[in-house]
């Protein structure tokens, strides 16, 4: 049996990324959309780490991943702050109701 190749990780990340896309396009709940975004970021991170490893313990990918984790945190903070704000006005957490501006 052949061992784990880079493709294993890449397929996993592709699946995870697709699941993230599924979440962001399916979820009406703004928080749900955020969850989807986190999934997509994680997928990218798996790539980075896997490449990092498969480039021969190339550290850049891992560092990159750390930054991504950090940025994801900041992003979540920003997003939650803004979403709470919108919720405050629209009295709804469903992104489908945020249609004050359209056309």
């Amino acid at each position, binding site marked *: 049996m052949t061992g784990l190749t880079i493709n294993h990780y890449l397929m996993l990340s592709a699946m995870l990324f697709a699941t993230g*896309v599924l979440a962001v*396009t399916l*979820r009406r709940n703004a928080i749900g*959309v955020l969850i989807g975004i986190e999934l997509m970021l994680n997928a990218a991170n798996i790539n980075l780490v896997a490449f990092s490893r498969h480039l021969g313990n190339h550290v850049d990918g891992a560092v990159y991943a750390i930054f991504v984790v950090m940025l994801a945190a900041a992003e979540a903070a920003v997003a939650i702050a803004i979403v709470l704000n919108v919720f405050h006005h629209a009295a709804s957490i469903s*992104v*489908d109701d945020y*249609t004050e*501006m*359209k056309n």
Partner: protein
Amino acid sequence: MPTGVLLSLVILAMPMLSALVIAAFKKQLGTKADAVGIGTMGVALACAVYMALNHATIAGTGYVFEWFSVAGTSWKIGIGLDGLTLAMLVVVTLVSFLVHLFSKGYMHGDSRYEDFYRWLGLFTFSMIGLVISDNLITLFVMWEIMGLASYKLIGHYFQKQSAYLACKKAFMTTRVGDVGMFLAMLALYTSTGSLRFEEIFAKLGDVPSSTITWIALGLFMGAAGKSAQFPLHVWLPDAMEGPTPVSALIHAATMVAAGVYLIGRMYTLIVLSPMALLVIAVVGAFTAIFAASIAFTATDIKKVLAYSTISQLGFMFTALGVGSNFAWQAGLFHLVTHAFFKACLFLGSGSVIHACHHEQDMTRMGGLWKKLPITGATYLVACLSIAGTPFVTAGFYSKDQILASLWAGGHTSSVYYGIFWVLALTAAMTAFYMFRSFWLTFFGKPRDAHVYEHAHESPATITIPLIVLAALAIVAGFGWKDAFLPAEGAETYVKFANSFTHEDPVWHHAHGFALAVSAVIWTLGVGLSWFCYMTATGATARKRARELIAPLYLAASAKYWIDEFIEVVIIRTTGIVALLSAWIDRDAIDGFVDATGSVGMKTSAASGVADIQIVDGAVDGTGSLAWGGGGILSRIQSGKIRHYLFGAVAVTALFAVVVLYMSRS
């Protein structure tokens, strides 16, 4: 500059001068405008007569100068004098002078008296210009200016609907003919590189015969328009809406003569196409008999004369359609004699109308001989002339020669025999209906007491022209025609298909035969009309006969519904097409607006801009496409973030998939 040219320039300038002076000093002149007109025309007439007397030295002179030049090609215009021109000049100035004189009495008291003289001046100017031109350009220019002047003169009483419709009709109908003539000019210029008669004729040898035929037919189309040949004759009867002197001028000596003159002038070219000759002859003959039949039924004295004019013009064209030298001479000779007797008739009718206080219906006249002896006498003379009274009248000589040349033409093509008999019949009809008008007007019992009571002889300004013209209607037949329009000597400026000499047996025979026929038909025509209108038995027979041919009579009196036909088929159709075009033009717009369902937007002021986008939907599709596209995009921009995400991600991924697919292998 030769004397002849100078004189012809004087002749040309005189009427223009009259028109300009009258226009400029309208207020100061008042009714004295007539003096200006008559005076200038007198000078012109004097010059013309002088030229005619010295024709031997003057004929053949000319003057040419460059109008402009384009890319090295010089467009030259100028004056050319020859026998035909001199003959025309005399006729035109004479008739015009007499008409000017006649108008002084006839138009007296008209509110636009000065205007009338002004346009009369312009009209005469254009006719003179037309005949002295040595090229088709100035001829055409004058031709068109004549159209304008006739428009103005026919529409003199423009407050009347019938008058303004008539003038429009005259202009439009002749314009249709002009297009043909213009196209012929284009073809001539293209194939010979010039529009001067001399140069054209010199180069005709290089032109293919089919082109010549087309050119000849084009010219004939123009001539037919101006000279009222079928089917472009419709304007002429209506043009009787103009004042009677105008009718006399236009329909006797000038405008209608222009077409005949054109064909006569371009004869060298025309005769090269037997086909065109035949068409001219056939159309002329048909027009002659066709118009004569209508004249049978007309009761308006001027309408009778109008149809008679059309008919007589048909005679001229028929003659010109033969192609021989005698035929050419006959056609143009008839033009001259016709100018005199028809002017006399028109002015005579004018005198009658004047006397009867603008009553034109013959059925309400009668017995005026006593009241209007001079008018009656001159009218009779003219009638005799037009009917072709053998040996004494000018009309006889010209008409006889037409018939003779037709019979002679039968030697080349037997069709001309047939045409001969048609014209012979027409000549008989002419005698009949002309005398019919004479009897009805001057003899019999007065049918309208009121008209009769107030009738009185016209003043001298009216009767003098009548007398002069009546005299000419007799004497013009004698002798002088060979001086100006020599059948055997005109070859210097005109070529024929075949020439005869007086001694030619064919011609001799034809001449004799035609003479006999003429005499018979004159007798028949005049006698029959006397029988029908001056005897009681005749009146009943006439009624019987009329019942017998009722449908024909109805058709003739309805002018064979030509006007209605044109109205429906051409004018209405054009109008509908025009409306349709306008609708298309406007309603690319509305149609599209409706289609997109934004009718409401159209009305609301705020969306004025919105509207514009679709304005030209059909014309510039992009606008509407853009507008529609914008609407779709607006809808996609739903405001829902999920839709946006879907759009963005799906498009990106789709693009990626497509790229992957394309880059496979």
